């Protein structure tokens, strides 16, 4: 267990951690805004991966160039999901918490079936691109370029989200988060804010999806592989806190990578879960949670 092995695993953990963080950021944004845990979040990412794959297959362009298109598509999809489903789920008078969980769960199954129906079950991969299959080596440590590009884009996305939170729309988001009912008094159209919030959340997970598609396979069930990591990241970081999602994502990426080094890799997720439970039991709201 020499030093460079640990360093290499740590780097791998860092790169994956940033992706977990961005996936979680979308989830945290939506939860923070309206107390809704989107159990179809992994499936939204899967749709973004398929969108990137299809556009790449049709156009032959580098997936990084396709990023803006997919982000816009996902933004629209996010708003559509809100208006079509979530708005109704929120207006329910009974068992709202439960209805919201199982509506998003039903959506997840539906999207998985639709993906299977449209694309079939094959495992597809984007095999070309400026960074595809290339690795930089610095002092014995290997930096796979697709992951590095993905991490940089995720960081940029985080910066974007933080910037947005500074803008007027961002303040409206924050205000709505603070007190959903009061904002109506000062002329903020709550529904529009929720729809934009969902659009933003879907766009964030869409970015993570496109970047993931550059080095990870695409299949109808790939969303499930990342779902539980995203929920743990959000709950650990604290629902509604973007900074929390970033820190928690990195922490979980590291813990997962280093546990796989020490324990039987099949148990690597257990390391991550135990840390989550330890933190949450003493700080129920997570590391930076305010809700």
């Amino acid at each position, binding site marked *: 267990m020499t030093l460079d092995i640990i360093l290499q695993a740590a780097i791998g953990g860092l790169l994956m951690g940033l992706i977990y963080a961005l996936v979680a950021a979308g989830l945290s944004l939506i939860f923070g805004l309206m107390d809704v845990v989107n159990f179809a979040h992994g499936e939204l990412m899967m749709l973004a991966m398929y969108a990137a794959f299809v556009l790449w297959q049709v156009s032959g362009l580098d997936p990084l160039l396709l990023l803006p298109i997919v982000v816009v598509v996902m933004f629209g999809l996010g708003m559509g999901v809100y208006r079509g489903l979530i708005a109704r789920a929120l207006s329910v008078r009974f*068992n709202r918490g439960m209805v919201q969980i199982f509506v998003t769960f*039903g959506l997840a199954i*539906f999207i998985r079936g639709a993906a299977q129906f449209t694309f079939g079950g094959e495992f597809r991969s984007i095999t070309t691109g400026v960074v595809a299959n290339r690795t930089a080596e610095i002092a014995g440590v290997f930096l796979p370029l697709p992951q590095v590009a993905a991490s940089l884009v995720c960081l940029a996305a985080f910066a974007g989200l933080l910037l947005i939170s500074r803008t007027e729309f961002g303040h409206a988001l924050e205000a709505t988060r603070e007190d959903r009912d009061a904002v109506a008094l000062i002329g903020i159209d709550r529904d529009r804010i929720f729809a934009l919030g969902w659009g933003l959340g879907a766009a964030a997970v869409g970015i993570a999806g496109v970047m993931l598609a550059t080095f990870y396979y695409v299949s109808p069930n790939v969303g499930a592989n990342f779902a539980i990591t995203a929920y743990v990241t959000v709950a650990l970081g604290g629902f509604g806190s973007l900074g929390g999602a970033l820190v928690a994502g990195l922490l979980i990426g590291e813990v997962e990578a280093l546990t796989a080094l020490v324990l039987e890799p099949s*148990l690597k997720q257990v390391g991550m879960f135990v840390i989550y439970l330890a933190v949450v039991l003493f700080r129920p709201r997570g590391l930076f949670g305010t809700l």
Partner: protein
Amino acid sequence: MRNSILRRRRTELVGGAAVLLALAVLPLPIGDVYTQNLIIITILFAGLAQAWNILGGYCGQISLGHALYFGFGAYVSTLLFVRLGIPPAFGMLAGGAVGGLGALLVGWPCFRLSGHYYAIATVVVGEIGWLLFLNWDFIGGATGVYVPFKGDSWVALQFRTAKLPYHYLVLGFAAATWIAAFLIEGSRWGFAWRAVKDDFVAARSLGVRIFPSKMAAAAISGFFTGMGGAIYAQYVGYIDPDSVMAGALSILIPLPAVLGGVGTLWGPLLGAAVLIPVSELSRSYLGGSGRGVDLMIYGALIMVVALARPQGLVSLFGRRRGGPDARAA
């Protein structure tokens, strides 16, 4: 006026007996094994949904990790039978006890959390349990455990091809969960738990002890879920972590209760009667195409029912307690 509750409970008891009788007679005219199997699975999941309902419905704790207790029950009963020769008729109760104990162990830390934090914590605990069982060689790990067939016997809960014995076994199980829910609804616990669910601050101010209420509900819910796991193991004849402890099961167990009507006596049964046949039939008759159509139908059904009937399908049958019709004031 005074005994409106007693009158309602008497009609529920009569209704319960009628349904029990109907379900007891139901399989007799049906010769087709597939349909009998469908009914058995439906009743089993109706019982499991009612078991979950005791914690999730009456006490308001949305646990998304019940597959853990289901798995405990399945493994305890099967290992006692396969390795120690203890017949599942008793193994089932041991399985239930371990399920209840598991629910207490999980509840102890997790009940300090509330709302979505609690739900996510139960998902995580469920995953940990599944991963540990997957890597635990003593219990067979990923290879799973075969339940050897030793001949038709009620004690060993094994029958070669006969379906009726299994039908009455799961019917007994579902009836037990229904009776438990019925007794809870009318008891001091039932009122306390429902108060905890609706508003624990108000409940606390009336002397209701919050944490013990949740733990009691969890123990009973875990016990019946564990028992359901033991029955499932005897019925299927093979168990492995993926089939008795996976996350998908933790969603399937509460689903009928949520769609049928949470915190009601008939919700879980009605939800199971609609949901399970649809998912089984859509898979059997549409799954073969491999186009995922059955998943689309299943997903769409969940969304439509959850949105159209937030209080559950049970609210279609007259003004059920738990809130008037959605359109009322």
